[in-house]
């Protein structure tokens, strides 16, 4: 095997699948050998760092006295927070929306009532006017003619009335 190890071959090696041919090449090629050794060392260091990191975060043992049998079980706080957030969202958006719709309906009802009251009032005025006529409607032009002032400013009078 003359050519250097490919990236895929190095990955296979790191996963524990080095072939005899790859191993033979690495024995002869210092560059490839150094690459594999360096990556293997980095991955070992990474594992050691992960173990140390975990221990530094208190992950060596379960909390004292903790038992799964006595645990309350599903306690992922994110879900509790999600439920609380959903409740707040409902209160802050749905309730004002409901109130707004209710107020709009009330305003529309009040406007309808005012319009009906105005129509009733006009109708009553027309009825009052009809009732208060002194003469029947066809004779009204004649009455108006009689009530017109003469040249001296007095209303015209019937000769019989003098």
């Amino acid at each position, binding site marked *: 095997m003359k050519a250097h190890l490919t990236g895929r071959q190095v990955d296979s090696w*790191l996963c524990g699948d080095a072939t005899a041919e790859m191993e033979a090449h690495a024995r002869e090629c210092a560059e490839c050998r150094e690459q594999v050794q360096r990556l293997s*060392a980095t991955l070992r*260091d990474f594992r050691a760092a992960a173990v140390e*990191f*975990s221990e530094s975060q208190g*992950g060596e043992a*379960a909390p004292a006295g903790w038992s799964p049998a006595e645990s309350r079980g599903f306690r992922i706080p994110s879900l509790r927070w999600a439920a609380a957030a959903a409740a707040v969202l409902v209160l802050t958006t749905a309730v004002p929306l409901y109130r707004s719709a209710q107020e709009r309906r009330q305003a529309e009802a009040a406007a309808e009532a005012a319009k009906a009251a105005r129509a009733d009032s006009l109708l009553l005025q027309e009825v009052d006017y009809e009732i208060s006529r002194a003469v029947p409607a066809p004779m009204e032009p004649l009455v108006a003619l009689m009530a017109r002032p003469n040249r001296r400013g007095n209303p015209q009078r019937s000769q019989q009335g003098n």
Partner: protein
Amino acid sequence: MDAAEVLATRAGELDDFDSVVREHWARVFRFVLVSLRDADAAATVTQDCFVRAWRSRDRFRGEALVSTWLLRIAVNLVRDHARARRLRFWWRASQLVDPADAAWVADRSASAEARAIDRERVAAVWKTTRWLPERQRTVFLLRFVEEMDLLEIAAATGMAEGTVKTHLFRALQAVRERSGGMQ
């Protein structure tokens, strides 16, 4: 010991569940912590993992090692937690712990300069694993932190062995390219 006896022995390990917790807590916590990088979340998810295992212990038939079974539960919980975290609009990535800043490396190098280079490479692995796609990260951590073989990873993740290998190679390629390895 025949296959039936192996299964029965494994299943029998759960009879003493306190021992199971003692024996496997550190490993489950470590996997969850390096996946989520949040110590509080890791403690909560680890507790939940053992609670779920306790509740479903009657269904464990010993087809896998107890550790693999527990890590399978942990893998699912980590995935659920990470997804829920992405949906939280107030959550900030800066809340994560960054172990890369204090990456420990073995003191095998001849010089301080060489140790600094080693430290940088480990930090690069931490950073790369943080941004790997979820399945690649899970497979990578199970292989190189928990030192599981491909079949165990397949059992813990529910993936086919070939799929595990594909994800592992992609993760390794990313790590190799970002930690000074060959291209």
